[in-house]
Structure formats: structure tokens, C-alpha cells
């Protein structure tokens, strides 16, 4: 075939792979074949250079980002020093807690290298909830599942820390009593 025509009639392999990529994200594991078609038209693909700020601590948060390729550093600033919280790579996502509840960002995010992020925002999700409630439902179920898992993990961590603190206080008071 003539390369010109094959170029014109070539299927958009990029978009195909976007749906394919979204299928690999655990957040969207509940979705079915047709849902990805809607999801694809819903998300925003953004390209970032290395070292670019995605959002700063205290910014109004309205959605989550999935890393398609590249890397992102999550950190907080305390007295001008950056405290690293996490380094995320392709397939990871962040900011999912502000997807359903409006809140300020609790940490900052900066790209480590040239990065492609896929943004999913509350406004689009609300639109989807009106048009295709079933799809929105499955996305929200996935988000809820992930958030609950993290909440449980955080609760366990708090309990563990508190026990450790109690033990430390007990041992220190034991020390002072001695």
C-alpha cells in the first residue's frame, strides 16, 4: 500500500494504547471494555519536562494523576527543606483523595524526568456520573477501594506508632522512677 494512504488510514495506535495503559492501572480494574472508551475521552494527557512542578502543597486539589511514563517525587516542605515522601514510577497514581472531596494538596509533586501524566478530575467525573452512571460507579468503586485500603493501612500504622510511643513513654518514666 502507498505509505501516504496507510498513514492517513492508520488507526490511532496512541489512543489504543492509552486504553490499554488505563487497563493496567489497579484503580480501574473494575471497568469493562466499553467503559475504557468513555474513560479515554474523559482523562487529560499532559506532558511535563524534568523538574516541573505538578502541584504545590496547599494548591486547590481537584483530581488525581496517573503516571504513564517517567517519574514523580512527592515531598513536603518543612523550613525550606524538602522532605521526600515517595518516589513514584510508571503505572503509579497520586492525588486520588481530592478526586471526590475538594481539599488542598497535602504535599507537593515534582517530575524527576520527562514525564507523561494522565489527569482525571472531579469535574469530568461529575459529568460522567450524569451521562453514564454505571461507568462512573465503577470508577468511584475503584477509588473507594484504594482509599479504604490506604486508610486501613494508615490506621494500623497509627496504632503501631501509638503502641511504640506508649512503650517509649513507659520505659522513660520507668527510667525516671529509677
Amino acid at each position, binding site marked *: 500500500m502507498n505509505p501516504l494512504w496507510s498513514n492517513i488510514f492508520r488507526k490511532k495506535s496512541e489512543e489504543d494504547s492509552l486504553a490499554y495503559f488505563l487497563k493496567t492501572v489497579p484503580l480501574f480494574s473494575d471497568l469493562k471494555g466499553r467503559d475504557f472508551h468513555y474513560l479515554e475521552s474523559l482523562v*487529560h494527557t*499532559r506532558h*511535563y519536562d524534568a523538574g*516541573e*512542578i*505538578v*502541584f504545590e502543597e*496547599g*494548591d*486547590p*486539589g*481537584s*483530581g488525581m494523576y496517573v503516571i504513564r511514563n517517567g517519574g514523580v517525587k512527592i515531598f513536603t516542605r518543612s523550613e525550606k527543606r524538602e522532605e521526600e515522601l515517595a518516589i513514584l514510577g510508571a503505572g503509579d497514581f*497520586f*492525588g486520588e*483523595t*481530592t478526586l471526590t*472531596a475538594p*481539599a*488542598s*494538596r*497535602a*504535599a507537593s509533586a515534582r517530575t524527576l524526568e520527562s514525564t507523561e501524566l494522565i*489527569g482525571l*478530575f*472531579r*469535574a469530568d467525573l*461529575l*459529568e460522567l456520573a*450524569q*451521562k*453514564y452512571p*454505571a461507568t462512573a460507579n465503577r470508577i468511584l468503586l475503584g477509588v473507594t477501594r484504594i482509599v479504604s485500603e490506604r486508610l486501613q493501612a*494508615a490506621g494500623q500504622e497509627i496504632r503501631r506508632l501509638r503502641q511504640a510511643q506508649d512503650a517509649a513513654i513507659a520505659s522513660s518514666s520507668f527510667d525516671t522512677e529509677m
Partner: protein
Amino acid sequence: MQSFSRTQYLLLFIALTAAIATGLAIFTSVSATITMVQMATSGLVLPLILALIVTFVLDPAVKFIERETISRTLSIFLVYALITLVLFIAVTWLFPPWRHMWASLEYDLPRYTAGFFTFIRDLEAGLQQRLPFLSAYDLTAMIRPMAEGIVAEILVQTPRSALRIGSLLILVPLFSFFFLRDGDRIMRALISLVPNRYFEMAHDLSFLVSRQMSTFIRGRIIEALIIGLVVTIGLSFTDIRYAPLLGAFAGVMNLIPYIGPLIGMVPGILIALIDLGVGPQFWWIVTVYILIAQVIVDNFILIPILISRVSNLHPLIVILAIIMGGRLYGVLGMIIGVPVASIIKIALLEIGQYRRAFSLPDSISEPERPG
């Protein structure tokens, strides 16, 4: 003086001339481009604004029909077909009486102005009897050319504006079809141009602003419809003619705050005064206009339900918007000017509120919500 030789002067002269020539060339080309752009877009702003308003009004209906099995394009066509059907039925049902009404109005309009003049003359005579020093002023002679000019203008302008409305009738549905179908995609494309750092904020703001705007526009349109209906029904209890026309006029004028309702009731009260005289029917008409339509229905029922007081404009801004709208697009511009000003105010308010909501130090809620 030695430091500047003749050649240096010459060079300076040439450089300055070149600079001035370049400046002039840039200026003329820019102004030519601007006039070209102005000419190209001259008739388009009004249909575009109207199409946006129609889009905001029809969007809920389109969304209501749209399903997984019914595509958006199909649902827009369904809504259009429904509106065409309703309009067709309304026209075939109402056209014969309306045409009759229009023909008799053309005959009646000079009669009403004549009646208005006799009313003014009587008023003048009464005033001059009581206040003799006023006889120096010839009130009738002052008002007559003005009112006659207005009536002549209406009679001349009606066919001309009908032509303009005809072109609007083609352009507005066409534009709003594409806005309805691709509005989301157009907005996405526009927002995707925003730099990364501000993208999320711009995306969120555009959503909030368009939501506020659509509730506002829908509210105003529904308000105007209900006021028109209330006035029509209220007037049809009396012997007054042109009740539907007066109701429609009052409804449309109700889109303009403060001044609109007053202008909306002028023709009705005038016609009542001339045709029916001051009597129980006349007072009923005044009651319908002021007490029922404006105070009870509009102020007590519609405005609290449909429109938040936040979008209230300062009277000065209302007057400025009416004058500027009138300058730009005539009578339609006067009607649209104030809602456009309100929309701009809503957008600014929403942006301000957004910034305030998130610049507050919420140290209590933050640790509970790790992002």
C-alpha cells in the same frame, strides 16, 4: 559640535526616518488588520452570544435524552425536532389571531399615540390652570416630535429587524447545534492550552463558572417565561387587546433589571388608559403589572427560587450595560447587555471565591487528608 560630522547627522536623519516609517507601516497594517477582523466578525457576536445562551438552556434537555444507546448528536436532533414541533403548533394555532393583531396594531399605533397626546394636552391644560407660570412651556409641542419619531422608528425598523431576526433564526440554531455537540471538546481543547502549572486550576474553574452561568441563564429565561405568562393571563381577564403581545413584551423586558419591568408595563398601561379609561379594569391591569407580576410572582417567588442575589448588579452597571449594549447591537443588545454583565460578574465572583476558599489556612483538615 566637532563630535558630530555631517555624515553622522545624515545617518541619524536616515535612521530616524526609517524608524518613523516602520512605525507608521506597523501602525497602518495593525489598524488595517483590526478593521479587517472587525468587519469579518461584525454580525457574528450577537448570534454567538445568543447561541451560547440557547446552548445553556437546551443542554439539560439534551443531557436528559442522551443515554448509552442514544448518541449526543441524535439527542440534539430530537430536542430540535421537539422544539420545531412545539413552535409549529404554536404558530399554526396562534398565527391567524396574531396576524390580525399585527394588522390592527399598525392601525392602532398612531391612534394610541394620538390618545397619548390628548392625555398630555389635558394634563398640560390642568397644570396651566393651577400653575399659570407654566404657560410659557409648550409641553405638547416638545413631546410630540419625540413620540412621533419613536413610533415612526418602530414602524420602519420592524421589517428591517425582521430581516435581521431571520438571519439570526438560521445562524443561532446552527451555532448552538455545534456548541451542544462539541462544546465539551471545544472547552477541553481551550483548557489544554493552559500551562501545566495552572492547568488543574483552570480546569476546575471553568467547570464551576460554567455551572454557575448555566443556572443563572436558565433561571433568567424561566423567569421571563413565567412573568410573560402571568401578565398574559392577568390581562386576558380584562377587555384589553393585545394581551399576548403585551405579556411577551413584559416577559422580554423583565430580563433587564430595575428598568425593564417599568418599560414592560408602559405600553400595557397606555393602551388601557386610552381604550378602557380610568376605571376598575385599568386598576386591575396596574395591579397585574406591579403587584401580581412584579412583587408577588417575581420578587417573592421566582427570584428567591431561581436566582441568587449574588448576581445582583449595581444600578450604575446596569445602566452602563444597557447603554453599551444598545450602542453595539441595538434593542437586542440592550436586552442582552445586562445578562452578559451579570455573567461576567458571576465568573469574577466564582474565581474570587475559589481563591479565597483555598488560600485559607486549614491546618486542621490538612493532616487528615494526605494527598
